[in-house]
């Protein structure tokens, strides 16, 4: 099963689940906003999405990940709008039978997210200037 949310506002984390008797691994990834972008200090990032397509691509990617790695469930929340330095912009939880497929799935999911989900970052510099981020790691 997959669960996808794109939220404009602080992320409420998915709660851990002690009722899962077939899952030996529960992996949690939280992506945070760093204080610098390409060497310049920033106060925040502003995430922009292609509304509709971002949710569709993220849903497709989650389903692809579940099938490819034989994990049980993948839940993901991605923030849009202003996210201050230190705050969580991406929250992913994966449940799997063993840790290996869960870890591999997490790495692949986040790499693919950074290739195909139409979401972008604008850097808010200390002087208030707003510029498109040039940062696009795979």
């Amino acid at each position, binding site marked *: 099963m997959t669960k996808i949310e794109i939220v404009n506002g602080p992320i409420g984390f998915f709660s851990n689940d002690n009722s899962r008797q077939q899952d030996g691994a529960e992996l949690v990834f939280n*992506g945070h906003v760093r204080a610098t972008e390409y060497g310049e200090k920033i106060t925040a990032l502003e*995430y*922009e999405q*292609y509304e*509709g*397509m*971002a949710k*569709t691509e993220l849903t497709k990617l989650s389903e692809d990940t579940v099938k490819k790695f034989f994990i049980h469930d993948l839940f993901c929340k*991605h923030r849009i709008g202003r996210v201050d330095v230190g705050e969580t*912009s*991406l929250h992913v939880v994966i449940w799997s039978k063993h840790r290996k497929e869960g870890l591999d799935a997490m790495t692949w999911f*986040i790499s693919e*997210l*950074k*290739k*195909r*989900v*139409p*979401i*972008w*970052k*604008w850097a808010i510099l200390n002087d208030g200037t707003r*510029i*498109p*981020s040039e*940062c*696009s*790691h795979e």
Partner: protein
Amino acid sequence: MIKVTIKCFSQVKYAFGKDELNLELETGTSTLELENIIREKAKGKLDTVSLRIALNQKYIPIQTELKDGDEVAFIPPVQGG
């Protein structure tokens, strides 16, 4: 003639200062031809930016003939996470 809407994001939005552009094009214009038009209109601001094309909210791998009412986005490298 056909009318298309171009959704602008990230560097494309920065180049034009707008969320979307509405253009009237010759019937038979392809997505590749539209990309050339957009790059020309950006006056060099998109020269170093690689763009993928989404047509009606789906990535398309090859050039396609545009139809009246199409929504096109030239997608700069994405940066989620």
